[in-house]
């Protein structure tokens, strides 16, 4: 615990715990250790504190008293035949606490059971150092406490473990050895990566794109969660079996025993080596305990909310439930990356950050990546847990996520932030908009705009649901599954009803259900193949009277986001002739990138249907995409308007496209340079693929070179009459006229050929003429000029 954040949290947590103890409301919250029932007579002290008090007390005894105490746990060495393994006081003190303090039994006092003197029991301790004596005494105290625990404990599993530890410590006192838990439990750590690593990975995975402040918040939450886990009292195997309805709690029982021996008991029993729960256990334990722990934790925080520090109250009450919901998905999710041994945050962290910032105008729309991330759990939850904060609060945190944070990763020469902010102010200022008209749908409104609004207003909901054989599905889920089966069978009349029923209710298939007024009006049934890295879209339909409202698009976008969360980035589907159009609109294509071997035999093959694929980009927030693009368009439109009002010059539009030209170089657009446009660095080095584009670029360039004042010596082939030996010296003559012809004949299929010829003009000139000649001077100037132009046109690197 070297982390300052965690240390900052610790006192607060302890404060909360002791408060729980005093009010008696802490229920399942374990603060100390030992038995579940803390001593009612001494409510103020934890068992841990009592144990250490007692130890200090015992260690302060005079030597004789200490020996008497140890003698009780030491074998008699009077003769080989004596089996007595502990001296028993012949005069048991009546009031032990007072009496023991006063006088020690004499070494000659005989043992009540074997009759040999105390000295015979403690002879082995004669030359033992005070430190070792104290260590043994500590064990004695622990043994006594364990003895009490064994008696008080009612749960048989726990009792057994206490008894085992009791015997172990007794043996160690006898043998003066170090206690080591043996048996089939194995040694810590029991799983890798451990819980702490997993949770920290989770924070990295989910929140690394956030601004430092928000990231820190999430980090604090994670530390708090880990700290809680370390001091959490696990449910007994019996409780576990009752709760999960599983007959086989063997694995949990092993973990529970490990936890008692290595984590829980050692908290108050320092003779045993202590390990942190979150250090030695991994995902499997977390899987077993998370649901119940989460419930207890949230309940605890809810009950004690008044005792929390005010500044932390919002954090805990608002964000902690979300945090836990998101974590839950990673714990129970089939292929969460956070548990991988070599988990690393995607390397393109910075790029990702920039991307996120650019596409979500966070401070304005209030839908930043964080609020999205936080709300994602609620809109798409398997169990629709009731612990969500009220929607209005979702927007609180992201406000801090200003565009300022994005500044440092901005591109050189980009539009200044102030300007962008200013423009965004105007487009989001409701007064600047055109009255109530905006409420109506314009013909350009995005396909999913209505659906998105309806979801925001709570008119429609999206849930991923599925049948389960191991768990009893709740009634609502089953009703929805029936609803889905109905929608699919009505909308897909060619599919046999029985077949639809079989797949919708198959536990391996899941369905993203669209709910309106509590009724299913559409859905996408899918099957995930995590090992194959794709998901099959099985059925997809919206009930007929709710069609053409953008629900299908919004459904698919939700499904995409769900899969990004579960790290599956390919959709495959067999689309029938009516569905192809829909899938195309959703970004599917007939071009299949997933290798056949990965899906063959997995995906259901339909005769006469077309296999289509959609590749997902994990950096795209699909449900917000059209909104974001609309915003970007608005911003750009505004920026253009501003620029236009500054330049105040109107050029006639381009006509070349009407004449059949497909593409022209951007720099050849009249007036584009005045706007401050410069060719972007990225395009410069890339090879121009389109021959027409290359042709136009080269043509443009050649024309510019030919009009240069120093181009005159190279305009035409050198005439033999003027330089008779020219063609003997120059093996590869070239000139601008020849180049023009070669260009017309489409000889320059790559820029390399073109540049080579240009360069040859210069080298030929230098070869044939003396360096200080007029020709060479022209060649030098021209060379500089065309290299400048080449760079400028992006044909060569700067």
């Amino acid at each position, binding site marked *: 615990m070297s982390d300052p954040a965690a240390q900052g949290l610790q006192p607060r947590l302890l404060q909360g715990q002791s408060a729980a103890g005093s009010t008696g409301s802490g229920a399942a919250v374990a603060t100390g250790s030992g038995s579940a029932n803390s001593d009612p007579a001494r409510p103020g002290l934890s068992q841990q504190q009592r144990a250490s008090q007692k130890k200090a007390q015992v260690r302060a005894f005079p030597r004789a008293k200490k020996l008497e105490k140890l003698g009780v746990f030491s074998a008699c060495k009077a003769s080989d035949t004596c089996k007595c393994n502990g001296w028993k006081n012949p005069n048991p003190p009546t009031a032990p606490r007072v009496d023991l303090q006063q006088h020690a039994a004499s070494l000659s006092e005989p043992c009540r059971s074997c009759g040999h003197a105390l000295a015979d029991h403690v002879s082995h301790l004669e030359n033992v150092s005070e430190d070792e004596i104290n260590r043994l005494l500590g064990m004695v105290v622990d043994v006594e406490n364990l003895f009490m625990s064994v008696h008080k404990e009612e749960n048989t599993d726990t009792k057994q473990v206490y008894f085992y530890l009791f015997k172990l410590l007794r043996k160690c006192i006898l043998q003066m050895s170090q206690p080591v838990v043996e048996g089939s439990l194995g040694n810590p750590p029991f799983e890798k990566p451990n819980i702490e690593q997993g949770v920290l990975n989770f924070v990295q995975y989910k929140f690394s794109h956030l601004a430092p402040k928000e990231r820190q918040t999430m980090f604090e939450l994670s530390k708090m969660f880990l700290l809680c886990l370390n001091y959490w009292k696990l449910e007994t195997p019996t409780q576990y079996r009752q709760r999960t309805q599983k007959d086989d709690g063997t694995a949990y029982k092993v973990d529970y025993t490990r936890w008692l021996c290595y984590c829980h008991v050692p908290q108050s029993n320092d003779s045993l080596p202590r390990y942190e729960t979150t250090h030695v256990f991994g995902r499997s334990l977390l899987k077993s305990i998370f649901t119940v722990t989460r419930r207890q934790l949230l309940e605890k925080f809810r009950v004690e909310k008044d005792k929390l520090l005010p500044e932390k109250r919002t954090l805990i009450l608002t964000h902690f439930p979300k945090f836990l919901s998101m974590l839950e998905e990673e714990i129970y999710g089939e292929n969460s990356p956070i548990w991988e041994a070599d988990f690393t945050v995607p390397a393109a962290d910075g790029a990702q950050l920039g991307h996120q910032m650019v596409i979500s105008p966070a401070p304005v729309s209030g839908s930043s990546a964080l609020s999205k991330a936080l709300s994602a759990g609620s809109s798409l939850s398997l169990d629709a847990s009731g612990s969500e904060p009220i929607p209005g609060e979702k927007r609180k945190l992201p406000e801090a996520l200003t565009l300022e944070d994005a500044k440092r990763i901005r591109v050189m020469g980009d539009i200044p932030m102030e300007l962008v902010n200013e423009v965004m102010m105007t487009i989001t200022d409701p007064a600047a908009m055109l009255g109530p008209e905006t409420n*109506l749908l314009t*013909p350009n409104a995005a396909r999913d705009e209505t659906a998105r609004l309806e979801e925001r207003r709570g008119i429609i909901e999206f849930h991923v649901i599925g049948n389960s054989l191991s768990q009893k599905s709740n009634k609502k889920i089953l009703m929805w599954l029936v609803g889905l089966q109905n929608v699919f069978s*009505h909308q897909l009349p060619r599919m046999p009803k029985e077949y639809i029923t079989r797949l919708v209710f198959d536990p391996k298939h899941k369905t993203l259900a669209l709910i309106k007024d509590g009724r299913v009006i559409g859905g996408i049934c899918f099957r995930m193949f995590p090992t194959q890295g794709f998901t099959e879209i099985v059925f997809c339909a919206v009930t007929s009277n709710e*069609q053409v409202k953008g629900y299908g698009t919004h459904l698919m976008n939700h499904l995409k986001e769900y899969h990004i969360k579960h790290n599956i980035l390919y959709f495959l589907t067999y689309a029938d002739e009516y569905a192809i159009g829909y899938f195309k609109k959703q970004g599917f294509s007939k071009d299949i990138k997933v290798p056949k071997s990965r899906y063959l035999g997995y995906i259901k093959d339909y005769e006469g249907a077309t296999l289509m694929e959609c590749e997902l980009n994990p950096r795209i927030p699909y449900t917000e995409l059209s909104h974001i693009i609309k915003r970007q368009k608005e911003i750009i439109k505004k920026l253009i308007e501003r620029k236009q009002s500054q330049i105040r010059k109107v050029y006639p539009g381009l006509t070349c496209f009407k004449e059949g030209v497909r593409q022209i170089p951007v720099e050849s657009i009249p007036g584009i340079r005045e706007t401050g446009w410069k060719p972007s660095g990225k395009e410069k080095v890339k090879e121009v693929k389109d021959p027409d584009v290359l042709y136009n670029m080269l043509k443009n360039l050649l024309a510019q070179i030919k009009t240069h004042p120093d181009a005159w010596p190279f305009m035409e082939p050198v005439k033999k009459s003027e330089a008779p030996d020219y063609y003997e010296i120059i093996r590869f003559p070239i000139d601008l006229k020849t180049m023009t012809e070669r260009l017309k004949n489409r000889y320059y299929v790559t820029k390399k050929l073109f540049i080579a010829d240009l360069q040859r003009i210069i080298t030929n000139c230098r070869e044939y003429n003396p360096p200080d000649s007029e020709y060479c001077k022209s060649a030098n100037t021209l060379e500089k000029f065309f290299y400048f132009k080449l760079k400028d046109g992006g044909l060569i690197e700067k």
Partner: protein
Amino acid sequence: MSADTKIAELLTELHQLIKHTQEERSRSEHNLLNIHKTHERMQTENKTSPYYRNKLRGLYTTAKADAEAECGILRRALDKIAEIKSLLEERRIAAKMAGVYSDSDPPRKTMRRGVLMTLLQQSAMTLPLWIGKPGESPPPLCGATPASGDYVAKQGDKVAARVKAVDGDEQWILAEVVSYSHAANKYEVDDIDEEGKERHTLSRRRIIPLPQWKANPETDPEALFSKDQLVLALYPQTTCFYRALIHAPPHRPQDDYSVLFEDTSYADGYSPPLNVAQRYVVACKENKKK
């Protein structure tokens, strides 16, 4: 531009009428209070003297006149709204004829279907409610009241049109009247769904004009289709009319009909109840099933 100024004028007039209404209301308030007080006094005195009888008669006559005056203003306001709407409609038709898009947005080849559906819903919602004078019965094309036999739909009117689809099947589509030839007794109509972009020439009997007023269930329930009546109704989110039974007529002016569409994919041959606006429910002529 003249239409614009006209609309602006009408809006100003409408605004004034609304203000007038409020004035009228405040004015009659005093008289209504008097009536109330008189009744109270009569109650305490527990007898109906000729004095009170006369007084009340006078008061009620005034109140009736006041109410009629207020009613008149409201009707004038409604007329203004209708006038504005018809001007807008004229402009729309003119623009359509000229092939110009009234919208300043860049033209789209075809309207997205979702947008078209929204427009159809809005058109149904803004269909005026018939407010008759006392004793006046709803006119033709109000609610379920059919048009007279010789009625000719105007240009731009929405109709249900029976057309032959590509596959030879006949179906009722939502269409807009382009013209009517008195000589041939034939309509020219456009499919409302621009994706079709087809112009149909159809005989009179293949055209059913859509209602031009909503009938008020509270005052003119007889102008509504009744339960179990066979109708043609626009299937939600489509531009086609299908045979349906009225499941429940609307209860309030803004309510929709609840109808059961004939649908063989359901066991009982009818769909679950779906809502369709008054605008898109018309009488079904053919009684024999297809």
